[in-house]
């Protein structure tokens, strides 16, 4: 049993660290910023889950589970926020290269809004909005 748990810890730790390595490789090989975002933050969610699981099993203690669950939960909550903020400002400031995109459906809306006369806070696509209820 002990040996089995140790092997499990080893596998979890190695897979978790492999996720960090993949994030690094993705940062280097992907062509533009928006694609790099995928490699950067998201494999880490899985990586941290694996590393934390390995840590808990290795320490053989229940007491650390709430702390690590908190850390992982906080990562779940905060990672999308930073991804969204970076992606949004990257898209708006033309930092992100557009030539590797297959299609861009947001640009249609952005162009239409930029071309339209300013109308305050009127929602931009009222006419096309699907009826909620």
């Amino acid at each position, binding site marked *: 049993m002990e040996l089995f748990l140790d092997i499990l810890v080893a596998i979890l730790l190695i897979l978790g660290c492999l996720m960090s390595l993949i994030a690094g490789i993705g940062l280097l090989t992907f062509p533009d*910023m928006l694609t790099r975002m995928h490699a950067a933050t998201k494999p880490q969610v899985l990586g941290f889950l694996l590393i934390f699981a*390995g840590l808990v099993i290795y320490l053989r203690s229940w007491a650390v589970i709430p702390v690590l669950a908190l850390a992982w939960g906080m990562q779940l909550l905060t990672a999308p926020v930073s991804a969204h903020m970076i992606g949004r400002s990257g898209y708006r400031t033309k930092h992100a290269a557009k030539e590797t995109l297959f299609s861009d459906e947001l640009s249609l809306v952005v162009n239409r809004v930029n071309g339209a006369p300013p109308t305050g806070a009127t929602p931009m696509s009222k006419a096309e909005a699907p009826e909620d209820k």
Partner: protein
Amino acid sequence: MLDIVIWICGIMLGLGAIACLIRVAKGPSILDRVLALDVMLLIISAALCLEMVLHKHTDYLLFVVAACMLGFIGSVTVSRFVSDQRNA
């Protein structure tokens, strides 16, 4: 056996960190650099977890929690600043 595992993990984390550093040095825009530094922070937290496994203690647990909770503030601040600067 655990020594070997820690070595393998350490090497992988190190390679990941080097890749991040290259992206920080090369990155065409500031957002690329912030992104790479974000990954760097996560790699450092992972290394802290590894160290806790190696020496079998829990002293760094709160550092890891703090990194996970506050790590996003840096990138949010920078991206906010970037878009404000361009729009002004």
